[in-house]
């Protein structure tokens, strides 16, 4: 497996709080992508961070990448109830750059 964690994590917070979700990966990758999947929909990309970047921001989102520890995080500031979703990180793999491998995901519930 590409991933260190195989089980869906669950977080429940109140609207307005900040949250950070983490993932770790096992093999070399050129990019880490973060996706969000809302109920009944397919995943949609939120942010992409490359192996030569340590941080990337997009609106309320902030992604970090630490290639030495092979880990990435996604932070959301000032969460809204509409941020409720499952969040995935995804990477390519050294053996197959044409395919994205997804981590197990974090189910985030933001209570209004």
């Amino acid at each position: 497996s590409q991933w260190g964690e195989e089980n869906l994590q669950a977080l429940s917070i109140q609207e307005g709080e900040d949250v950070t979700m983490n993932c770790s990966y096992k093999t070399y990758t050129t990019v880490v992508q973060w996706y969000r999947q809302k109920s009944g929909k397919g995943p949609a990309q939120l942010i992409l961070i490359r192996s030569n970047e340590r941080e990337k921001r997009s609106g309320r989102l902030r992604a970090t990448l630490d290639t030495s520890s092979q880990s990435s995080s996604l932070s959301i500031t000032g969460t809204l109830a509409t941020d409720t979703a499952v969040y995935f990180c995804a990477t390519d793999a050294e053996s197959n750059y044409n395919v994205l491998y997804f981590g197990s995901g974090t189910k985030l519930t933001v209570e209004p």
Partner: protein
Amino acid sequence: ETAVFQTPNYHVTQVGNEVSFNCKQTLGHDTMYWYKQDSKKLLKIMFSYNNKQLIVNETVPRRFSPQSSDKAHLNLRIKSVEPEDSAVYLCASSSNNERLFFGHGTKLSVL
């Protein structure tokens, strides 16, 4: 706005039956994918097609077969479904693997 279209949305069938799912993308992408998502939300790559040629098959059982008529279409056929095939099947497309665009998925229930 959705640009990857999957049909049907749901399908209920019995063990041993054959099913087919359709996927069409209107983004002009060269690569299309099928992912399987289980009840724990785990997403696993099944197939990847680049311009009508299969470029990866992640040890999927032989009863699964992708079918592509052109680069905008990638269908999935399951011959003789089994209970463990119950899942959501997600189709995606991309131009360079740096962003995948997913359809809404087809939920398969095998009784």
